[in-house]
């Protein structure tokens, strides 16, 4: 019987959503074109070639190495792309993804990525086209609500602020805003204006965000509501505390 990974314990909606993000079993909710995504990331002009930092591996004449023979390089590595980043800020008010779960999603489902998790933001560094593949997956699926999460390379402030009256996470650099009933982004990650307006689609309603979130919150699904999660957390912490300590030795 093939091994089936078990990602996260618990029976609440939050636990279920966390399993979905980790296993990449996420629903696609919107369409963002490659050009729009490239523009929003702001690392190169949309439609231009990927700048490279070294020649393609096939032309480099790699040394005879068993590890290199075993591991197939990612498309970005094979082409010699630069390493670039995508960074997210997710509101603490029921955004679909927690920074850690963006990292789990990237690390489990993508190769050659270097996810960095911070309290209010989450960054993935990878070869440019690999990073774009990861970013596209995250931006188009239920892992992101355009109103409650944002691509933010600088000034991520806003994730822990209260939401604005219109239900959108505060953005100091005004990279995206609610226009009508859709979120429009017209700046790249670092606040440089774009030559286009990217339609990110409708933000989730409060009820939908509460249903799709991976945040445990006392006003939605509290962490302590899930007995199985508590049991496993306590076990992990106990083993972590004891570590290799063996009193009988």
């Amino acid at each position, binding site marked *: 019987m093939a091994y089936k990974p078990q990602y996260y314990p618990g029976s609440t909606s939050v636990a279920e959503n966390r399993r979905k993000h980790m296993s990449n079993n996420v629903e696609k909710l919107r369409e963002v074109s490659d050009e729009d995504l490239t523009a929003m990331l702001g690392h190169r002009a949309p439609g231009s070639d990927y700048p490279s930092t070294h020649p393609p591996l096939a032309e480099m004449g790699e040394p005879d190495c068993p590890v290199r023979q075993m591991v197939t390089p990612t498309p970005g590595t094979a082409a010699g792309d630069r390493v670039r980043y995508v960074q997210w800020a997710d509101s603490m008010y029921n955004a679909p993804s927690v920074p850690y779960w963006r990292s789990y999603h990237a690390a489990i489902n993508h190769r050659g990525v270097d996810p960095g998790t911070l309290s209010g933001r989450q960054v993935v560094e990878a070869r440019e086209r690999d990073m774009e593949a990861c970013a596209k997956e995250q931006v188009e699926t239920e892992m992101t609500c355009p109103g409650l999460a944002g691509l933010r390379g600088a000034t991520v*402030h806003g994730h822990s602020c209260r939401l*604005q009256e219109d239900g959108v996470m505060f953005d100091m*650099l*005004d990279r995206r805003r609610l226009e009508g009933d859709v979120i429009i982004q017209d700046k790249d990650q670092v606040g440089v204006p774009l030559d286009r307006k990217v339609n990110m689609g409708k933000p989730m309603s409060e009820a939908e965000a509460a249903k799709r979130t991976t945040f445990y919150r006392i006003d939605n699904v509290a962490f302590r509501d899930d007995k199985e999660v508590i049991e496993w957390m306590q076990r992990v912490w106990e083993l972590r505390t004891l570590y290799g300590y063996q009193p009988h030795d």
Partner: protein
Amino acid sequence: MVDYYSAPKKPIQVEIFPQKLLMPDTAEELLNSIDKVTGVLRMMIQGSGLPMRVSCGPGIGTPIDRSDRRIINVSGQAFELNIRVGRIRVELEDKSAKEPLREAVENSLPIPFEFREGFFFRKKASLTDYAKYGFKSREDESINIEDERLLGLIDPKADPKDRICMLESNE
């Protein structure tokens, strides 16, 4: 607003903490309705800043052209609202003005809010204020400031020029 100096010396302070950050239209309406309450001595608004330019990162210096950083009008006095209002603190001349204030806020805020009494901005000069303003003279050791209402309203290191707005008293 009432004249600060003629007010009895037992003022109270109240904080209004909306559940969401206020957009400029709501903030303008709220501030105007607070100002109409009899017995308001001074108020302070606080929130996340709306900068004019990108202040860090590769896009540093890029202008931020945002439509919601706009001039609002409170009691006939226009000033630029350069924050997203998240908290309003009000000093009242006494307890009798508290309930009218709560009613005014309830009528103008479309969202739930917290309303609490406490001590939020000081009335006496602190050591930092003395360090900044100094004594009046060798003989007079009171603080060298024209208007004591400024105490506790802004950060002592900040420039009060574009942070303080004087509203004329009707009385």
